[in-house]
């Protein structure tokens, strides 16, 4: 069953000067199955971020619908959007978005605190998660005291601790060095194999290799998609690179 269904999604911005309409998303259709790991690739300005904002209920589409578990996101009123996000979605951002006033532990607890969970329950949920992510020793530290990779792992923990229906990751490796990136991607693979649905927006072909399916967006439409199928990581990598080359050359014959 599809956990996420996007159909006919359209987003038009009116620029502040001159009132020109800019079409960020023209017509996006795709769906994500339960337990799937999907990567979305595209160049800057292709509409990736707009798409993610709409999926996260941070923005409303101009037309079209996004169904999460059959529920239409665009009908959720703004006041309930935050609660909806908290209960159904987990986020991992490029810039980690950890609060510098909190320890890593408190950062991870934030969604649970907002949900009004008891402290005992929080600790029970965190312990196994922290072990999986290898941050048990770091929990009492502040974001400025740990490395980027460690920060991102804490951010992943924050995204997972609410057991969300789907994890949205926005360029999760964008601010990491290659070693930390590799580690994080291994982590995503492990999370995915444990049954977590993940949707990742990325620039990096290497990151996209971890996914079971890669969607390519150009000029506001889904331009192409690649299924991993039985191909090895190397084969997938080559396919992705080829597609990217075609994308950048502006060709539209795939």
């Amino acid at each position, binding site marked *: 069953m599809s956990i996420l269904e996007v159909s006919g999604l359209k987003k038009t911005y009116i620029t502040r000067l001159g009132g020109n309409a800019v079409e960020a998303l023209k017509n996006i259709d795709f769906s994500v199955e339960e337990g799937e790991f999907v990567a979305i690739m595209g160049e800057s300005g292709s509409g990736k*971020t707009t798409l*993610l*904002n709409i999926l*996260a209920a*941070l*923005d409303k589409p101009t037309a079209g619908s996004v169904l999460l578990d059959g529920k239409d996101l665009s009908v959720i009123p*703004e*006041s*309930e959007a*935050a*609660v909806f*996000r*908290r*209960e159904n*979605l987990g*986020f991992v*951002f490029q810039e980690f*978005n*950890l*609060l*510098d*006033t*909190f320890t890593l532990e*408190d950062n991870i*607890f*934030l*969604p649970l*605190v*907002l949900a*009004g969970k*008891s*402290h005992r329950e*929080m600790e029970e949920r965190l312990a196994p998660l922290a072990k999986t992510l290898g941050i048990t020793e770091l929990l009492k530290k*502040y974001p*400025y005291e740990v490395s980027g990779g460690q920060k991102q792992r804490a951010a992943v923990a*924050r995204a997972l601790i609410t057991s969300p229906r789907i994890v949205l990751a*926005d360029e999760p490796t964008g601010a990491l060095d290659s070693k930390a990136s590799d580690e994080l991607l291994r982590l995503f693979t492990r999370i995915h194999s444990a049954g977590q649905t993940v949707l990742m927006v990325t620039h990096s072909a290497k990151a996209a290799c971890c996914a079971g399916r890669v969607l390519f967006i150009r000029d506001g439409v889904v331009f192409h998609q690649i299924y991993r199928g039985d191909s090895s990581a190397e084969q997938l990598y080559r396919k992705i690179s080829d597609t990217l080359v075609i994308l950048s050359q502006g060709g539209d014959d795939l």
Partner: protein
Amino acid sequence: MKTAYYPHLACDGIRKNKRMFIPCMITTVCMISIYYILCFLSSVRVSRLIPRGAATAGAIFSLGSIVVLLFSLIFLFYTNSFITRSRAREFGLYNVLGMSKRNLVRIITLENLITFLISLALGLTVGISLSKLAELVLVNMLSGNIDLGIHVDGRALMRTVLSYSVIFALIMLVCVIRVYRKSASELLKSENVGEKPPRANPLFGLAGIIILAAAYRIAVSITNPVSTLLWFFAAVLMVIVATYLIMISGSVLLCRLLQKNKRYYYKAKHFVSVSSMVYRMKRNGAGLASICIIGTMVLVMLSSSACLWIGSDRSIRARCPGEINLDVHFSDPAQLSEENISVFRSAIKDFAAGRGTEPKNEGGLLYIGLTGLQQDSGLICGYDDTSAGVSFDDLRNILLISREEYAAISGEYPELEDDETLLLVDRCRFEGDKFTLLMGDVSHDYRIKETRTEAVLRDSSAQLIPTVTAVLSDPAAAIEDFDALTDGSVDRFSMEWKYYFDTGLSDEENSAFARDLETALGSLGFGGDAGSGYHYFFLDSRAEESADFYASNGSLFFIGVLLSLVFLLAAVLIIYYKQLSEGYEDSKRFAIMQNVGMTGAEIRSSINSQLLTVFFLPLFFAGLHLTFAFPMIRRILTFFALYDLRLFIITTVVSFAAFAVFYMAVYKLTSNAYYRIVKGASKQRI
């Protein structure tokens, strides 16, 4: 083209940062105008309009203007450093883009020059237009002559321009040094430093609490008005230090303790507020403490100066019970005779008749005055000055009067043996049966026949020290031995006749009356024998006294209000800048929280609880400081002949209420600015 480039950049810089520049300019305008007004009021022309006490008023205003100037200096430094700090990034960028430090300095100088010139022009305009109003209010308060012409005082103008130009030059210098000392990358980075979690030193917090407790103890326990003043300054210093320690360290400590309490901490309501409060307090503790100190200062100044001003009339009545007051001092007990006094009485009567009036509402007392101690045993004695370590609370004015005097006051002629006394106590309690007069080796004991609570002199409630009056069958005999002991010098005790009456004449006539009567009495003829005549006398009219009194108390109040205004403005600006800088800092945080799933309502309530706590902490502490300072200030006010407790309570409460309302208004205004910033930023998406 090139010459217009820098002014253009400077104007642009001001316009882009108007959120910071405009409040600063408004404050500068106010300070300059207030400084000009104070200089103007202390000028010769205004002092001519004040009936009497012009010198006192002038001195108070010059002093006040110096305070304003000093405060302006400190304050403008603060705002300027705030502005340059928060613009460091902008300067850093210019620097990276190829502008040399010299060019930067040129822009900064131009910016400052423009804002300064605008502020100066506006400040002088406002000052000059309001100076007339200030003059009218002041002259009216001191009941002087109203003059309706508008004047510009050239010297005051020059002084204002010069003083503030110097301040401006100093600020410029510091600004330039600051820019030169930093490298471009430092400038670029300077906004992002200091994200370490604050580690409060528990010792500092604890020390703050202990010092504050000690200061409060001093304030409450010191009863001796003479040492009050000294202790007051000690307590003020301690309170200032303690406030800073508590706000900076104590509050961080408190937040840390709250964080330790998991049940409390991990609640949506407290989670965000407590953790960001830790940071906020560390960075803003000093600012909050300053606001608190300024607030307390304003409150003390307003309440006490208002109390002095409103209570002037009563204080004057206490000092001058009658419109004309005579105080004759004698040097020999034998001079304390009814004959001597009647010489004065008839001379005054004759003099008054010459002015077409007669003494009305007369009152007076012939007495021997000593200073004594009331002790636990119920003993009162004229004490030696060798007795060190005397408690001020035990001091008493002791008046010895004859039965005839008492009969003149009360209409009752008490039956007394030679060793008996009738004791009249005022504003103190006395339980004992023995009254002792003691000086050196000589002592006289009297059995107390009866003790009554009664004041023998009108308005004696205004005395600093309570009075005990002993009615004796022969007061002169009682001190004969002392007289011999002290070689006839009157240091240890005084022999006085106080006499006061009303004339029903106008104030001017009364002043003249007193002056002329003084001359007339000075040439009185007394008999040639030993018990005749007097030592010296004072004569004054209430009209003259009250003019002096009003001049000093009125100008004190006036300046109290003006200085309060200056300090309040400063506090407002500190608050405003605090809100601005915090708004920018917090906006990023709240955007993250919104992404993680915090609802708009939750963000708002969290902001509210933080703002309220941070904002009302200084107000709370100011109230607390004021409460504990109250007994001490009351004692100090007694130096200014003010003893009206109720009035002081009222002025204090009213000042605090007014301050709180004002504070609330500022809170509303500035928190709006804060909300706008936070909201604007949380609109940004991922």
